[in-house]
């Protein structure tokens, strides 16, 4: 009996002392945290994917609160939760959610193995950043895709894959959350986070080459040579040519596809459009190949190089 009593007293008092220490320690070292951070964090998906560019959901919540204090939530988006979650976040913080149109990553290079000859062979760590230090890399194009897959490694959502036949990455529109990790990982800034467009339809200049036309043409058969034809044909002033490279402003583009027809280099491609009417005779192989390929974003319509290449390889 006595033994038990002593044990209870000793253990009890140790517990009491420890509790007191903990109590004062908690008081003394209390970290003041904005309670809104916790609230915001609760409505976030909690996947801690890092897709937003912050270390986990708590990091993003902190950034949201900070941004709200500055007056705007612009530029902050939880790619997983999307608009609904951002609206909830905005509610908590007493802000209005920016209506952000869905975006998607677009690889602005179409220099496949066929259209862009390899003039050298790269040997070394399989990383685009390493290859980029060697100047133009395996091909003569200083601006084109290097094909080592830094973007693939950066993607948290398995939304970007290397197409071994083309030697280029392909984005899966369904999985892509437009978090921009691939865009940041690309040492040549080829990947653009672009408006997804109506029904996923997009018309894009698939080239990033800022060299003069003659040099571009030598390096790649589908490079933009800045001939201005697309600018002239566009009725909506959506296309600009800067530094020898055409760019289509997705907000102004009305998806008329005139420029696609006009482009002498096949550098402008339209995605996710239904096949053209017989008016433009598309070779039978092109649609077949695109329906076979992994991504649903394969260009349809013109006998584009990748499709042709894929069909050849399959045949």
């Amino acid at each position, binding site marked *: 009996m006595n033994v038990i009593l002593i044990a209870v007293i000793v253990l009890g008092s140790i517990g009491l002392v420890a509790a007191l220490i903990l109590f004062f320690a908690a008081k003394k070292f209390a970290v003041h945290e904005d309670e809104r951070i916790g609230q915001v964090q609760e409505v976030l998906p909690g996947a801690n994917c890092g897709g937003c560019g912050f270390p986990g959901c708590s990091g993003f919540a902190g950034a949201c609160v900070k941004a709200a204090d500055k007056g705007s939530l612009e530029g902050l988006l939880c790619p997983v939760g999307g608009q609904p979650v951002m609206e909830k976040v905005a509610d908590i913080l007493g802000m209005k959610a920016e209506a952000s149109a869905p975006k998607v990553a677009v690889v602005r290079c179409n220099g496949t193995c066929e259209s862009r000859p390899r*003039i050298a062979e790269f040997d070394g*760590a399989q*990383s685009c*950043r390493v290859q980029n230090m060697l*100047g*133009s890399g395996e091909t003569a194009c*200083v601006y084109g895709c290097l094909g080592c897959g830094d973007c693939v490694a950066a993607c948290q959502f398995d939304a970007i894959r290397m197409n071994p036949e083309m030697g280029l990455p392909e984005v899966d529109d369904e999985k892509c959350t437009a978090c921009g990790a691939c865009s940041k990982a690309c040492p040549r800034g080829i990947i653009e986070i672009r408006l997804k467009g109506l029904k996923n339809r997009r018309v894009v200049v698939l080239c990033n080459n800022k060299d003069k036309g003659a040099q571009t043409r030598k390096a790649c058969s589908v490079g933009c040579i800045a001939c201005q034809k697309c600018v002239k044909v566009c009725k909506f002033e959506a296309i600009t040519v800067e530094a020898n490279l055409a760019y289509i402003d997705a907000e102004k583009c009305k998806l008329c596809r005139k420029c696609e027809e006009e482009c002498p280099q096949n550098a402008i491609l339209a995605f996710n459009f239904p096949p053209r009417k017989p008016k433009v005779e598309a070779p039978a192989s092109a649609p077949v190949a695109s329906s076979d390929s992994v991504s649903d974003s394969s260009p349809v319509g013109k006998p584009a190089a990748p499709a042709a290449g894929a069909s050849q390889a399959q045949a």
Partner: protein
Amino acid sequence: MKTFHIGGVHPAENKLSAAEPIRTAAIPKQAVFSMFQHIGAPAVPVVKKGDEVKVGTLLGEAGKGLSVPVFSSVSGKVNKVDAVLDSSGTRRMAVIVDVEGDEWEDSIDRSDKLVTMKDLGGITAEEVVNRIKAAGIVGMGGATFPTGIKLMPPPGTKAEAIIVNAVECEPYLTADHRLMLEKPEQILVGIQLIKHAVNCPKAYIGIEMNKPDAIKLLTDLLKEKAAQYPGIEVVPLKVKYPQGGEKQLIDAVIGRQVPAPPALPINVGAIVQNVGTVYAIYEAVTKHKPLIERIITVTGKSVKNPSNFLARIGTPMQQLIDEAGGLPEDTGKIIGGGPMMGRALMSLEVPVTKGSSGLLLMAEKESRRGEVSPCIRCAKCVSACPMGLEPYLLASYTRLKDWDGCEKNDVTSCIECGSCAFTCPSNRPLLDNIRVAKQTVMGIIKARHMEAIKK
């Protein structure tokens, strides 16, 4: 025997062209002068299409900040001023000249007569530096840092020792070796000019022991004419790579350690100049000859006649290879510079630049890297690193994208000598990864710096 204290490796020397006297390469039919042959801002072209130029005519004046002018090494007509692919693999502004004849600017003294300090009379230190700057001289060992800037120590520092880098620790290359054998007195006068320019009484010539003839020649010459060339000493060094690195050479010769960046060699009282640069200084100051030609080794195990050429800057590499017996059939890799730090070239059209110390043609079978296997933590890279870094750790941090870890482990001190990857038994691309980390961390530090300035 003196050498640097941390790390180092000893690659097979392969100095195939060591016994080949310097040959003058033919003047090319067309010469390409990149405006970016040095570290810093590119030169600005001052000629336009159709202009007549002579040997020594200014083609591009120094740009803003750290920069040097570029001169024509041929006479003829400017074909065009355009961006062309250079040895870095990117397109850069260049002046292309179609060669006609070989007319030189009148101001250049083309005689071979040795001009000594006495002949120059009371030339001021300032005048020496000005002539060096005007001649567009850069470090010719490969770093291509503008020499004029190096010879103007920042306030608060004082040059206590000039160290002439005659180490040539890169395998295969023999350009500096041959230069010392063929122009020893000119080099000694050049050293005197540098000493005069920075008012420093002492100069050392660091030469590795694999060049005993050069050591003997210079030592004897200095003994013989001690009164004429005071305060110059030849320091024989043990053969070890990367002894030609600035910091390693300072450690080897005068036993001082340069602290981590941003400290410069001048902070420990040393100025290091490559022996090729010294010769260029001699020619610029005494003969008013701008930097228009340099010595370049064309070598490789399959090359018919490995040679040392005195080539005009702007000569296409293809021409030098033709003169050395043509491109061997089994060429797999073309390297501008030495095998340890040189750049792999994609085209033989690239011209000789101020920093081209060699052209190495490697056979296909020796140019591929071995199969990569896992790190076995043997720590050979750690003992090889001349900067005392831990390459395996930096490479792992790079893979994990832990840039803080890289910064804390001094990735910015890396001199990219390649000793780690050279020594790795698992063939791991250590330096590839470290370069990525170094680039990223430099970017982060710069951004932080800009942020601090903004605040």
